[in-house]
């Protein structure tokens, strides 16, 4: 199957076949990360710019390591140290970067749709590393990769995603991704954090965490994004933790071999208790490890081949 995307902007526009192709490619790249010499020459001579307008450690480091292991030259730009603070617009910043002829721009931005906007205006490839509350495709792909690694096949699994749904781009990408791969997705969160119309994306919506995690194969806890909504959506963190925190007690409602995922960074004692975060069912560090392989696959796929599609 030929799959030579120019950009990776969202999961919504990918087919199940294309998602599996990315995951299989990541599977082949994963081995490089355990070698003594962790480098292959695949993207020799390519320049990748990591353009991060929002704080990120995991994703940016992961993309940077992925690029370096493929022999590309990676450059990091973060908003706090760039001309953005001097008032430059996104388009001007991007055009200035493009004038230096990078091959791929990996961008995170606080505005939903910022990556699509850029992809329409630039000649180089764009990879979305999270745009506002829209999508975070590489996170959903590494989640799917991790679930596949532990469960074999995603088809037929029940995956519960709980937390601040309204402000989460991870959840949107994950709903698309898991639905396409044939999993049943259950969503749980306080009413103030559940956007209306979620059912239309093809998932089951619960207002009670216990209902949602009963008999689940995978549980994905989301962070309370304190920097985004202030404190108006929940009365207190303690109350949130009591009703929507994952702990040893409610974890027992899920299947015995259920795995616990978290996209990070974790708020221990809020959405996930320390004993679960360090427990034997957690695969949180596997997610981080797999993130590098998945991002290597994405960089390789947008860089390689003759461009067939412009989506």
């Amino acid at each position: 199957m030929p799959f030579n995307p120019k950009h990776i902007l969202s999961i919504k526009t990918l087919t199940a076949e294309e998602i599996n192709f990315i995951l299989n490619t990541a599977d082949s790249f994963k081995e490089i990360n355990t070698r003594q010499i962790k480098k292959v020459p695949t993207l020799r001579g390519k320049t990748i710019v990591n353009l991060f307008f929002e704080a990120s450690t995991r994703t940016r480091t992961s993309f940077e390591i992925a690029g370096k292991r493929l022999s590309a030259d990676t450059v990091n730009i973060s908003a706090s140290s760039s001309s953005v603070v001097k008032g430059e617009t996104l388009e001007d910043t991007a055009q200035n970067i493009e004038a230096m002829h990078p091959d791929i721009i990996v961008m995170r931005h606080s505005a939903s749709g910022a990556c699509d906007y850029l992809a329409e205006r630039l000649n180089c490839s764009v990879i979305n590393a999270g745009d506002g509350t829209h999508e975070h495709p590489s996170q959903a792909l590494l989640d799917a990769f991790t679930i596949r690694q532990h469960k074999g096949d995603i088809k037929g699994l029940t995956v519960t995603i709980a937390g601040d749904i309204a402000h989460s781009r991870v959840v949107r990408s994950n709903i698309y991704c898991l639905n396409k791969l044939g999993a049943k997705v259950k969503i749980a969160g306080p009413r103030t954090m559940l956007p209306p119309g979620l059912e239309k994306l093809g998932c089951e919506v619960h207002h009670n965490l216990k209902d949602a995690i009963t008999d689940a194969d995978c549980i994905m806890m989301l962070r309370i994004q304190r920097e985004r909504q202030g404190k108006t959506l929940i009365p207190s963190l303690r109350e949130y933790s009591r009703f929507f925190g994952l702990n040893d007690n409610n974890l027992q409602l899920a299947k015995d071999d259920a795995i616990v995922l978290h996209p990070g960074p974790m708020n221990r004692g809020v959405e996930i208790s320390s004993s679960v975060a360090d427990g034997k069912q957690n695969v949180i560090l596997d997610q981080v490890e797999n993130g590098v392989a998945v991002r290597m696959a994405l960089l390789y796929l947008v860089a390689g081949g003759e461009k067939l599609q412009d989506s």
Partner: protein
Amino acid sequence: MSVETIEILDSEGVQRALTRIAHEILEKNSGVDDLLLIGIRTGGAYLATQLQQKISEIEGTSVSMGIIDVTMYRDDLGSRNNLEVGQSYIRVPVTDKKVILVDDVLYTGRTIRAALEAVIALGRPQNIQLAILVDRGHRELPIRPDYIGRNIPTAQNEQIRVDFDDNNTAQAVHLLRS
């Protein structure tokens, strides 16, 4: 456009060629010590498995084998349509081994160049040798096989096809002329 298909080797012919290559490998390396067969995905990997069987039949001891995918080392990233990358399985360290690279058809030599780089990235072998079922000529790089099943001078517009059955055993070699 009709395609003319000429059989170069039948099933027995392939088996005889592989048996001879197995003997030549053993003769040149004085046995199986430190030998490591590495098949290049996918045809070469199948042939390496068969060579491994033949060597163990002849010598009575098994020889290590690995599979390598050279996609990550190719020089044509920008012009390929199929970007599929297969997995490599090499369970033993290659350092100080006598590595026998195995492939089905040797043509421009570019795949072998990529394979050499892929093997060297994993360690420092004692030496690397090359076993090929069919050498069809038209080299673009200074690469020469050590063991050859059959030399077939071809024209650029001709193709060589190696057929494998469901058990991945080589059944025949055909020349396609269009």
